[in-house]
């Protein structure tokens, strides 16, 4: 078990019964989050030193509601993890003194951009789109400790569309809010979760970065969507877990087709 604290997304009420030290709960917020099938209202959060997760891209109406809710932020809330940069403006306007963690998983891929974000926030979640070498380079060079992926479903796509509902409506199936999608050529699977605010596709295999450690870490982030408490405890106890992957940790992506040819 790591000595630093964990930040764990609360994917079910049952998860709050976890008997683990050094754990901080991150609550996906009702009305403000996507990609979770259980979300929480402010009234439902009673754990001290909790974090709230606001990972929707916010439209006019939603950000207006959020401003109202944040104006009455309960004292149990220690921090806000978010993706929409509009939240920075609200926090400043309301003069809130909470920890801010930027968690836009695809934007935090180099040390310079992260340093710029750190001018406005306390920490950022390092992207799952980069390699171990890139992670170390970033952690070695940025001034504030970062949140790093530990064991999680990595988000691969966020759509405003209700893709599972559209699918069910088109083919005449009963509507579901979770499905596993398999791409036909590559056999790559994605775990889709839909709510009224959109659909998130996660890589179906959990990414397992448990071997990774560094001195400059604020939290190890866990998104255990779909796992039971005993499975989570097993993960934290270092036990081997099935259906995992190391994502792009040891596998660099490319973008020019010529580079691919050269690699081949």
């Amino acid at each position, binding site marked *: 078990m790591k000595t630093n604290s964990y930040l764990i997304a609360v994917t079910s009420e049952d998860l709050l019964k976890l008997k683990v030290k050094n754990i901080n709960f991150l609550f996906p917020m009702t009305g403000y989050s996507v990609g979770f099938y259980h979300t929480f209202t402010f009234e439902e959060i009673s754990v001290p030193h909790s974090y709230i997760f606001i990972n929707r*891209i*916010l*439209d*006019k*109406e939603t*950000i207006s509601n959020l401003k109202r809710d944040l104006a009455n932020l309960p004292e149990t809330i220690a921090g806000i993890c978010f993706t*929409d*940069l*509009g*939240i*920075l*403006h*609200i926090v400043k306007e309301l003069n809130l003194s909470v920890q801010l963690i930027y968690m836009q998983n*695809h*934007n935090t*891929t*180099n*040390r*310079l*951009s992260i340093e*710029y*974000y750190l001018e406005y926030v306390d920490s950022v979640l390092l992207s799952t*789109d*980069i390699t171990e070498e*890139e992670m170390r*380079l970033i952690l070695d060079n940025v001034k504030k400790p970062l949140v790093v992926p530990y064991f999680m479903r990595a988000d*691969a*796509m*966020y*759509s*405003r*569309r*209700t*893709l599972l*509902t*559209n*699918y069910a*409506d*088109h*083919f005449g*199936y009963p509507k579901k809010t979770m*499905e*596993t*999608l*398999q*791409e*036909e*050529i*590559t056999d*790559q699977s*994605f775990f889709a979760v839909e709510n009224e605010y959109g659909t998130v*596709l996660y*890589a179906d295999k959990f990414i397992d970065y448990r071997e990774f450690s560094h001195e400059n870490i604020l939290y190890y982030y866990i998104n255990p969507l779909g796992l039971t408490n005993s499975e989570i405890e097993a993960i934290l106890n270092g036990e081997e877990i099935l259906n995992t992957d190391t994502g792009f940790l040891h*596998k660099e*992506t*490319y*973008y*020019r*087709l010529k580079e*691919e040819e050269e690699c081949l």
Partner: protein
Amino acid sequence: MNKVELLAPAGDLERLKIAYLYGADAVYCAGKKFGLRANANNFTLDELETATQFAHEHEKKIYVTVNIIFHEKELDGLEDYLKELNRIGVDAIIASDILVIKKVKELHLKLEVHVSTQASILNSEAGLFYKSLGATRLVLAREASIEDIKDIKENTNLELECFIHGAMCTSFSGRCVLSNYCTGRDANRGGCAQICRWTFKIKDHEDVFSMTPKDLNLIEYIKAMIDAGVNSFKVEGRMRGIYYIATVILVYRRIIDAINTNTLTSGEIHYYLDVLNRSANRDSTPQFIHKLPKKEEQYFLGRQELSNQDFLGLVQDYDEIEHIVTLEQRNYFSVGDVVEFFGPNIETFTYKIKEIWDEEGNFIEVANHPKMIVKLRVDVGLTKYDMMRIKVFDKQNYL
């Protein structure tokens, strides 16, 4: 009413010139580095310089995309590249990574910064954040509603740019790495393999499906968007050819001009809608501007990408004395075909092909070789870069 900008894509110099000629006020394009179409031709710095001179000589604007999300290995060379774009005098860069926006200010460059749609801006608070960084324009997320647009305009007073036409991502732009997982190609550095258009299966179901959105088309909402404060109307398609660019830009040029003179009719809108859909060979819908798109705004399966052969010829020259047009053939046509000519300075007109001559002046029945030069007798005056296409829709039937 504020003068609004029609903004066209350009994959190379030829398409850039066609876009301006057919009515674009500005074009956006990419250099060889740091753009999200990494495998397109794109422009060398010399070509960007030529393009910028051409644009400014014609009182047009040019914007360059520097809109990848940077990884460590791309950091080298960014500053030099921005300085070069500044020296060349492009009117703005389009960026999404905070790094690029900050660098422009740190280096004291004169470049304006437009925040890319990759930043997924849907609210004025996010707009104000980018304004505080020095951005002068926001390219809003395609998911923005009219109410979102109005609010952002009122509270930021920044220039707003919105996509009005073309292909869409299934996801919020910039929020998808399906390509990374399926092919190893990084979507946010220009390698997107468009996985959302591939076919999927759901466990235990037989049906295969794609998640492909129909194209975006906001032709019916231009007036409302102008009223909401949109300054720039953007067409997608840096990979598209000159016929598509000419057709789409001319349609929107005419619509904006008709709105400005308060002469746009619903009949014209329907006519233009049919022309646009045929040029893309795909259905299009308004998508998010007025409601959440449902299954009707999506292709699931069974759709084939059959390109039509509507583009018949490109005018090279017109002899005003003999009334002879010289055409470069683009698709098969023959004597007896009913076609139409269109261009930026003429009213589209119908023409029945009675005679065709080849370059040596011999009568021929068909023009069947790609890019062959042929001559036709046409009484209406034409100019270089006017185009001939198959006649499918008759505007008179819509009025």
